[in-house]
């Protein structure tokens, strides 16, 4: 079992997972923020002088949708954050238990099961 290989394996696995996870969240939030801002402006404009001026029902629908977009974006961010945590956990466990089991197998011993989270 090579200690340096374990260290570099964990470091590279984590670096990749965390960077990728954060980039996904960041670009999602950035693009969604622009879209929500655009929709806010468009709905207001249509309410003041466009197709929503005499359509209360549809105006209220779009306002409710804005609320849902904000809520659902939060859930999507939470989802991606949990996914990133999952990937980080699996990356670490794969490297460490992979090396342990490799060494145990070489010694003719049985494998250790992967640890459960929590």
């Amino acid at each position: 079992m090579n200690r340096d290989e374990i260290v570099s394996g964990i470091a590279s696995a984590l670096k990749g997972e965390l960077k990728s996870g954060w980039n996904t969240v960041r670009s999602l939030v950035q693009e969604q923020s622009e879209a929500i801002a655009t929709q806010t402006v468009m709905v207001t404009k249509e309410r003041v002088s466009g197709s929503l001026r005499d359509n209360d029902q549809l105006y209220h629908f779009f306002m409710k949708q804005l609320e849902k977009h904000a809520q659902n974006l939060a859930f999507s961010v939470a989802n991606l954050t949990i996914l990133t945590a999952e990937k980080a956990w699996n990356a670490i466990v794969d490297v460490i238990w992979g090396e342990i089991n490799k060494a145990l197998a070489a010694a003719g011993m049985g494998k250790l099961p992967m640890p459960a989270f929590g």
Partner: protein
Amino acid sequence: MWRQFSFIFIAVLPGSHALKSIARLPAVMGLACLLAACAVKFVPDYDEHLFTQLNEQNQAALVLFSSVSAGSSRADYRKFKASYDKVIGGMEAVRSVIEARTIPVSGVKLTKLLVDLCKTEASMADCVNSSSRNIRQVLDTLNTMRDQHRQRGLDAGGVPLFKNDYEMAMHRILVVEAALKR
């Protein structure tokens, strides 16, 4: 910029307490950093005095380990008692400093928001399967557009509202579903 968007959400939808909390989430998370400099903190400040104490106590502990590295009999314990007292007492002092230091409000809020967001049985599922909420929103948009079309027709100015509305929810689904490939 996120503070501005949060303000927009709060301003246009004043009745929703949940929305206010959720609208604060990106700001709390420091996503304001996207387009502007920011200094949000989720974890405690660096404490030079604490760091110095830690190094001193660490050094004392390593000296103790070194002094018994060749093994030490039970009879020899008396020789090391003072060292144990010094190391353990010093570490206890460091622990009390660590536990007493100020925790940033933003970090506590972020934790609370995530806990609040995912605390009910239904929202727990949504926190790990957000596409469920988003696909329902896609369907709300399409159903409303169809009903509008059928009842009043579609105005050229209204179609982009439906399209943008649809695209926002679909975008979230596509991003999350693509991320699930692992």
